[in-house]
């Protein structure tokens, strides 16, 4: 039995494949960060090695070894942030060496289990050489090998690699489901659970981690605080922010885009508050700030602003100067009247 939250469709699909002995040799599990890709992959790996009934049974020795990361035939290939011993420093990609090791291992018989399982984390971050080497293995897989590629950005996985995998799209969980899990399994009080569930956007891993007092929640609060400030801020603070965000884009595009999505959700919350639909907002703990900002703008202004953010999102994909695009967006954004902000 699979022990994952949500993803009923994917679980049913895998259960049927397992029952009929028709597991493919390669899957691409795609979905946003913290949605449960690795959890599902590990469950699937356990199922592939399981010796009990209704795999993964969770109690047999192979299941337990997979769960504790000790199984010799279940390998996780990931970007090595610490860098190798060769002193080349932290890596930003999965290199060819890691794939070569996998190729070597894949052609040996499994060490202790029934088959080799290779879990490739961030499959979109393989170097071109690594992806092409993996492609060869995917095209002519040795027997008894299962590849599980995970990606938050499936369109950026090498298309030839992508086309050799069965695609399994993992959607965010319903907010109510996340809240229920937090309440019932992680003993979070109802109010906090609801707030975290909404902040998590259905990515249950994030919600669970945040509920355990990790830095995730604090970082999110800080980002929201900044956005709230900018909404009420003057042009000078807005331009400083545009500069900062443009730099972030340079370092890490995904993080930059993520910030813009946060903007969209914030503006949506303002709109909901304006329409007296405050119970649907994502940022429950910010209710007062949202109410103040909802009063300071007209609905039309907020809609225009929202379109501005969407335009930036489009522009950055077309290689428009990010800083310029952000500055234009913030320049066109309405300012809070001095009286209102005082």
């Amino acid at each position, binding site marked *: 039995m699979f022990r994952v939250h949500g993803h009923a469709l994917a679980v049913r699909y895998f259960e049927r494949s397992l029952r009929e002995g028709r597991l493919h040799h390669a899957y691409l599990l795609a979905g946003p960060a913290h949605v449960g890709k690795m959890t599902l992959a590990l469950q699937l790996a356990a199922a592939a090695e399981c010796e009990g009934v209704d795999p993964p049974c969770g109690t047999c020795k192979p299941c337990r070894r997979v769960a*504790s*990361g*000790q199984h*010799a035939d279940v*390998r*996780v*290939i990931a970007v090595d942030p610490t860098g*190798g*011993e060769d002193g080349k420093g932290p890596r930003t990609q999965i290199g060819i*060496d890691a794939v*070569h*090791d996998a*190729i*070597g*291992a894949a*052609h*040996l*018989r*499994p*060490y*202790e289990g029934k088959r080799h399982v290779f879990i490739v984390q961030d499959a979109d971050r393989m170097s071109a050489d690594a992806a092409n080497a993996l492609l*060869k293995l995917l095209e002519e897989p*040795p*027997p*008894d090998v299962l590849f599980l590629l995970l990606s938050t950005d499936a369109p950026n996985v090498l298309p030839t690699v992508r086309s050799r995998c069965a695609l399994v799209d993992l959607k965010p969980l319903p907010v109510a489901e996340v809240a229920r899990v937090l309440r019932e399994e992680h003993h979070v009080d109802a109010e906090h659970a609801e707030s975290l569930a909404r902040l998590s956007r259905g990515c249950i891993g994030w919600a669970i981690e945040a509920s355990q007092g990790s830095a995730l929640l604090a970082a999110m609060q800080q980002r929201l605080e900044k956005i709230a400030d900018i909404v009420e801020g003057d042009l000078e603070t807005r331009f400083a922010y545009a500069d900062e965000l443009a730099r972030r884009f340079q370092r890490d595009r995904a993080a930059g885009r993520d910030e813009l999505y946060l903007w969209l959700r914030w503006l949506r919350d303002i709109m909901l508050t304006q329409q007296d639909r405050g119970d649907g907002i994502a940022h429950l703990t910010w209710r007062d700030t949202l109410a103040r900002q909802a009063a300071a703008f007209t609905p039309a202004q907020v809609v225009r602003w929202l379109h501005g953010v969407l335009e930036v999102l489009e522009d950055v994909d077309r290689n428009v100067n990010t800083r310029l695009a952000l500055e234009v967006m913030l320049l066109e954004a309405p300012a809070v009247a001095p009286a209102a902000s005082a």
Partner: protein
Amino acid sequence: MRLNCLQENLSHGLGVVQRAVATRTTLPITQHVLLTTDEGRLKLSATNLEIAISTWIGAEIQEEGAVTVPARLLTEFVNSLSRQALEVQALKHGKGITVKGDRVEANINGADANEFPPIPNVNSGIACQVAAKALRDGIRQVVFAAAIEDSRPVLTGVNLQFDGDQLTLAAADGFRLAVHTTTLARAVSEKLSVIVPARTMSEVERLIEGDDPIDVVVTPQRSQVLFRMKNVEMVSQLIQGTFPNYRQLVPQEHATRVVVGLGELQRAARTAAIFAKDGSGIIRLQMQPAGKGGGKLTISSRAEEVGEHVSELEAGVEGQDARIAFNSKYLTEVLNVIGEKQVSVELTTSSSPGVLRPVGNDRYVHVVMPMFVQW
């Protein structure tokens, strides 16, 4: 776990298993060595998930148990000590050891023995026995011909074919093929063909000590092979796939056959290699059968802008004039292992493979692809 043993025994044992300790790995526990008490001795095991080596050393066991510690750390520490008696004791929580010697003491943190990958247990299967020297010679004569990193993984292994009391070892990398046949000390019960990683075979050769015959066991599922030597057991995963049918690659006929002293040919090849180094590694061989004088073999190499070299060897040449070019690395490598006083080189044309055999020994044959050159 508590036991006493000698530093030199422990150091030797760690040296034996060390080659199976993983270097680059996704499973950190494979960088550990497993210490287990086993019937009055201390068993040391390591595995990199391809090769697992276990060895037993004499020890005075006071308390049974098992523990794993980082192999490199323990080896470095033990090797730094002088010869002395050591007391090894597991830490109270079982995740590490204390090693006590003469006025020296160390605590080494490790992990629970249960976390260590299971060392494959090969008890039953298709078994045979081979003499130490026979196996060592066989491995030495073929293992270098295996591919290093190939798009065809089967070629990175050595093919072992057991048939009755005959064992045939073969390795090939697409440019050369080495085949060695030897007699088993105890025959197999059924025909069997497996592919063992070349690295494993090199390690077996390194670990063979003395003249005790070696047990070879292949698991019934054909997934692992065990080599049991004196005090050392090595289990290796087998490579999946089918080894190419190489028998058809050994030319059955030849137009020219040269017999030449191994030492002389080796020296000439070495000399030629010096010039060949800068000239794409090409060594040219020209054979002339006995006419007015005796038959001769001319070896030459040249490199543009560096220079050139010619050596002439007296040789018994049968058949017609012939010439062929070989890669100097391939030629010197096979000459290094051929191991008889004389070697024969058989050729058909300058574009078909050459065959090298030791004269007076039909247990070895080596096929090398020629290089295409302008004469």
